[in-house]
């Protein structure tokens, strides 16, 4: 909660960092002094900063993220239309990435320092070392240009239904995001599983004759997931960042692309509204990780 409040404060400060003033940025360089004064009065910008901040908080509390002067549309209405697209693409990629990375990391830990591990580690290393847009472009040049297997652009429908109607076009964006996240998460899982495998309770489980499959599924996976969960929770900003890049490369009508367009057009209210939103989502992600803790680890109880 404090963190969300802090995010709003940072956003508020960012808004007032604009050289000149918000009014100047929106009305343009040729606006007269009287017009600027009128704009400031109409939008409460002539009040003391602290009052403005409280008014800003009041609007946010009512779910009002601001108003785009360029698009003549509220930030809320923009976001409401686009958020489902992000949820579909980023969400699918996240689920897929976890579904691949957890078994992969575990297999690497079990066969540590063997060929499988080396191959997977090198692959993850290479993926991890690429800016995500570079990976997206390599995939496009390979799978859409050299071999005409997949469309190079995401479905261009604005609504989420249209997005799902063209699943083939979703493959590349989702694949890019999945690969980026698999590289990250399998590294976490590998080191967590290596640490868990060295624990005494794993040796006990083995000593009492439990089959390897059960040792892994009952003891190693669950205990390793505890530390992986924290890291996944913490990597939420990274996931959102690659989301923005992928939306930009594949032209997906999502919140990230809107943010980018707003930045290019100096549409500050949209940028700031989305920043608050993204900050809140990150905090929620960390909260989810904390809740997942309690589910995974019976020792953790929140009163």
């Amino acid at each position: 909660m404090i963190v969300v409040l802090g995010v709003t404060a940072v956003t508020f400060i960012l808004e007032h960092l604009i050289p000149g003033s918000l009014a100047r940025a929106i009305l343009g360089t040729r606006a007269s002094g009287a017009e600027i004064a009128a704009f400031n009065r109409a939008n409460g910008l002539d009040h003391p900063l602290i009052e403005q901040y409280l008014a800003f908080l009041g609007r946010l509390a009512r779910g009002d993220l601001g108003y785009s002067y360029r698009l003549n549309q509220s930030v809320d209405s923009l976001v409401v239309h686009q958020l489902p697209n992000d949820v579909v693409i980023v969400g699918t990629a996240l689920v897929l990435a976890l579904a691949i990375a957890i078994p992969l990391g575990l297999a690497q830990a079990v066969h540590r320092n063997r060929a499988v591990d080396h191959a997977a580690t090198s692959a993850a290393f290479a993926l991890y070392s690429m800016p995500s847009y570079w990976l997206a472009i390599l995939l496009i040049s390979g799978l859409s240009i050299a071999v005409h297997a997949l469309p190079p652009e995401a479905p261009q429908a604005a609504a989420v239904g249209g997005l799902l109607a063209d699943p083939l076009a979703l493959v590349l964006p989702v694949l890019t995001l999945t690969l980026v996240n698999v590289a990250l998460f399998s590294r976490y899982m590998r080191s967590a599983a290596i640490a868990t495998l060295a624990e005494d309770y794993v040796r006990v489980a083995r000593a009492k004759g439990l089959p390897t499959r059960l040792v892994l599924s009952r003891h190693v996976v669950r205990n390793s997931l505890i530390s992986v969960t924290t890291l996944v929770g913490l990597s939420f900003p990274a996931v959102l960042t690659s989301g923005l890049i992928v939306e930009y490369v594949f032209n997906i009508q999502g919140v990230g692309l809107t943010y980018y367009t707003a930045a290019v057009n100096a549409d500050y209210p949209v940028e700031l509204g989305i920043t608050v939103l993204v900050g809140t989502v990150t905090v929620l992600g960390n909260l989810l990780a904390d809740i997942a803790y309690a589910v995974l680890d019976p020792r953790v109880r929140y009163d």
Partner: protein
Amino acid sequence: MTDGARPAADPALRSFARHRLALLGLAVIAALAAFCFLGPLVYHTDQVHANIRLTNLPPGSGRPLGTDDNGYDILGRLMIGGQATLEICFAVAGLATAFGVVWGAVSGYTGGLADAIMMRVVDIALAIPAIFVLIYLASVFRPTIALLILVLSLLSWLGPARLVRGEVLSLRTREFIQAVTMMGGRRLRVVVRHLIPNTLGTIVVNATFQVADAAILLATLSFLGFGLPPPAATWGGMLSQGTTYLLDGYWWEVYPAGFVIMLTVVAFNLVGDGIAGSLDARLRPA
């Protein structure tokens, strides 16, 4: 390391020397730095004046990697773009690490309310994905090398701050720190002479990863069009400019820049892993 720990540092050094991948990483970094900073002394090209008669030429004699859409020689441009890229990344890693270390050490050592406030500040800054703030600031201000360094550092000190605080929290209760306090050592001395040197391993490892992360962030920012404006160049900017010609088959404008970025990031990650492995006795190769 403190003076007393000198003998203990040697196995770590020897272990690092045996870490072949880390040495390879170090060699690659040295080679890249030599290429960027010494290369232009040998290989002279005009990287300021555009020449439309020489645009988009494939590799040939006199231009080993061809030219880009402004007629700049790509090999020469990789050198000057690399200078800006490496300068920015090193400066960011240095600044962010220095600030983060001091912040984390003070926060962890002071404890109490100050610690709580200082760490909430870190949490708040971490909650906003860096790229969003970067894009915002780059859209408001005109990017220069100094601004990019400042902004990237502002967003990168959070990791080291958290790491160092964690280490300091556990070091604070150790006997040798208590001994210093009991002998009348002042707080500043404890932090500067004892706490920070003992977290040096973590700090160095993290700093190498910071360079790699900065390289990726910088490249991403350039790709989105918020990098250094021409005639200045960065690898990320070259790559992003080159990708517009991917469909035309001008591969020489795309792959070399992408390759050097990856090479840099891999090299720094290898070195970081190597140092981490040699400092941690459990991971040291037998």
